[in-house]
């Protein structure tokens, strides 16, 4: 099977490529990149005017299956991923049952193989049942294909447990993806604590709730030489701590989400629960710091924190609503429109944040996030000129909870190719796949 992606601007930061060329896929692998490659009977994909990138990777996706299939399942989540331009997603383990043993991890992989359209890599929990007390069987989880460990949704509250997790995970070379939140400081909070929480009369979550835990985790990384990845960094103070940790040479990485990069806590004014997310949307100074950190290279990757919810969980009073945003299908377009088109990020930096960056965090940079000949042919193609309005009713995800609804964005994913198969074209996910 041959597929020739013709005439696109190929942007592959891992290999320092940014020029208009052709890309040939043979079977499921990238075969060649070059000028005027011969068709030789290959299926043609005209990418003129488009940007051809390594397949985008989201290392922070909540797929909800098993246990909460009414919010999302692996089939719907992976289609949302394809529509959003992602070819690899890492599934967080806060399902029911929790991915704290090989059987559940294998279930996720097998279900993805049967029903999914993109690559789904499971993440194992740090602790059994994510209860924060006993370590999960990390060796078994690693063997079952888990690419990281996380209790996301909740922090690993006990410092001794985090210490041992980092020490133990070192044996497998896998990172701990940490949800940094001091629950005593954030308790009952609904939004960022500051001027606007005062005005809206909603209980605030102070920036310190995140920063205190980031500081703790950095200290643990120093103690253990373990790999800590800070999920959804959202405050200026947390970024300062991460910057210092990196300067010290500690194995600390971090991600930013599109919503924290683009929206401020002003969005909460409507009391529309689609703006309710954890960590909360922050005030301008934090958003500005995060944007600078993404532009200057401090932030390692952009991750969606895709958190789909059923309507009942969001269509209610603000304080009663669940936290989270259905993010897979808007992440790339939001970043394109609000950060690239505004000149804050170059296309190359943006592609790196969605490809080589996340691949490095999960230790898969040799095989993912690059178009190096020989690697699995996961490819994302962007159309910088497509203009579309976000309409959650058209989401592939079961989660329609998007604070970007109604927003007109320029620059959308156009195609997604997974192992040489075009799974999404012109924003439409192919029917009949698996």
């Amino acid at each position, binding site marked *: 099977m041959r597929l020739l992606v013709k005439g696109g601007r190929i942007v592959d930061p891992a290999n320092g490529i940014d020029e208009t060329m052709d890309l040939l896929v043979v079977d499921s692998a990238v075969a060649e990149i070059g000028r005027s490659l011969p068709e030789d009977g290959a299926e043609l994909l005209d990418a003129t005017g488009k940007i051809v990138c390594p397949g985008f990777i989201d290392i922070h996706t909540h797929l909800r299956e098993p246990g909460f299939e009414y919010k999302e399942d692996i089939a719907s989540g992976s289609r949302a991923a394809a529509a959003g331009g992602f070819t690899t997603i890492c599934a967080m383990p806060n399902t029911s049952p929790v991915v704290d043993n090989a059987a559940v991890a294998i279930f996720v992989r097998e279900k993805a193989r049967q029903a999914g359209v993109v690559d789904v890599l499971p993440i194992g929990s740090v602790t059994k049942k994510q209860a924060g007390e006993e370590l999960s069987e990390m060796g078994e989880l690693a063997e079952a294909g888990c690419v990281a460990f996380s209790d996301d949704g909740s922090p690993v509250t006990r410092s001794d447990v985090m210490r041992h997790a980092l020490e133990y995970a070192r044996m497998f070379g896998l990172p701990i993806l940490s949800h940094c939140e001091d629950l005593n400081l954030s308790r009952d909070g*609904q939004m960022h*604590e*500051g*001027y606007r*929480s*005062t*005005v*809206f*009369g*909603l*209980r*605030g979550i102070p920036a310190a709730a995140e920063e205190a835990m980031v500081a703790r985790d950095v200290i643990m990384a120093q103690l253990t030489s373990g790999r800590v990845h800070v999920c959804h960094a959202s405050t200026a103070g947390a970024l300062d701590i991460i910057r210092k940790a990196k300067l010290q040479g500690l194995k600390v990485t971090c991600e930013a989400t599109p919503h924290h990069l683009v929206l401020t806590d002003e969005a909460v004014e*409507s*009391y529309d629960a689609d703006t309710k997310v954890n960590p909360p949307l922050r005030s301008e100074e934090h958003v500005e710091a995060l944007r600078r950190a993404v532009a200057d290279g401090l932030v390692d990757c952009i991750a969606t924190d895709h958190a789909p919810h059923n309507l*009942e969980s969001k*269509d*209610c*009073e*603000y*304080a*009663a609503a669940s936290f989270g945003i259905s993010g897979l299908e808007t992440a790339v377009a939001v970043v394109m429109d609000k950060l690239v088109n505004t000149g804050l990020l170059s296309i190359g930096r943006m592609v790196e944040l969605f490809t080589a960056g996340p691949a490095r965090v999960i230790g898969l940079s040799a095989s993912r996030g690059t178009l190096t000949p020989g690697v699995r042919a996961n490819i994302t193609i962007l159309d910088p000129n497509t203009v579309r309005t976000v309409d959650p009713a058209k989401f592939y995800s079961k989660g329609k909870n998007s604070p970007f609804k109604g927003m007109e964005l320029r620059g959308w994913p156009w195609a997604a190719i997974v192992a040489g198969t075009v799974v999404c074209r012109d924003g439409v996910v192919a029917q009949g796949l698996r």
Partner: protein
Amino acid sequence: MGFDQRKDLLGIRDLGRDEIEQILDTAIPMKDILKRNIKKVPVLRGKGVITVFYENSTRTRTSFELAGKYLSADTSNLAVSTSSVQKGETLRDTIKTIEVMGPDILVMRHGMSGAPHYVARNTSMRVINAGDGTNEHPTQALLDMFSIREHKGTLEGLTVTIVGDILHSRVARSNIYGLTKFGCEVRVVGPSTLMPPEIEKLGVKSFCRLEPALAGADVVNVLRLQKERQQAGLFPSLDEYSNLFMIRPEHLRLLADDGIILHPGPMNRGVEISSEIADGPRTLVNEQVTNGVAVRMAVLFLMMGGSRSEIAG
């Protein structure tokens, strides 16, 4: 835009000064109605007003009910504690059920900030916020402003000190939004743990000691302290709170000569206000209650599109 053009009354923050004045001016003839032998005018005849209180309240709910009755509206109260809410019905479904029964105005109190905003988006009824979480309590602020204006002749340029748990107080927020629109110097004073972040950005002066906050004040608005805040670790004891923040007779000399004391009630005597002050001649608690009915009559009347000429005479 006049207030009578609005669909809902969700807060003071987004009201214009003209709208507030329209309500306060309309409340004057409404208060006259309350002084009559027969306290009933036919202006809302055939209109339905329903009160739905998700939090306990006696005075606000009764005040709205009487306000509606005095204007000849048919008023009804949904007792949430005995309603389908207890069977797990969502707020949206409860409101939709009420809506199809045909009332024109929904008066709602809810423990969660923004709940009336959510309801207002999802119903064609006119919605009046009777207090939502720690956000706003607009009719309380309006009755406070009415009471102040009645005593002082104006709101313009007064110094108003709000004392107590500012952090959790919807009364404080609505008062701040309203009074600052009239050029009042608004001061807030209370324990630093009960002071919201960046409160001064609302245009108020913040104090953590009572005496300087009271100096020269024309009005002191004392907030009710919720005792459970102590269990939450926000202050050490009721004794310490009352030592530091209770309004006592000796504080009166600090105020302007004709300084008055307000309290939204119910009062914790001996905690935030001493009995001598509570029962003293400069404290307007009972007048506030009466004025509350008048102000709510004005709000209901204007929301149904009433004009001044209908209630003259």
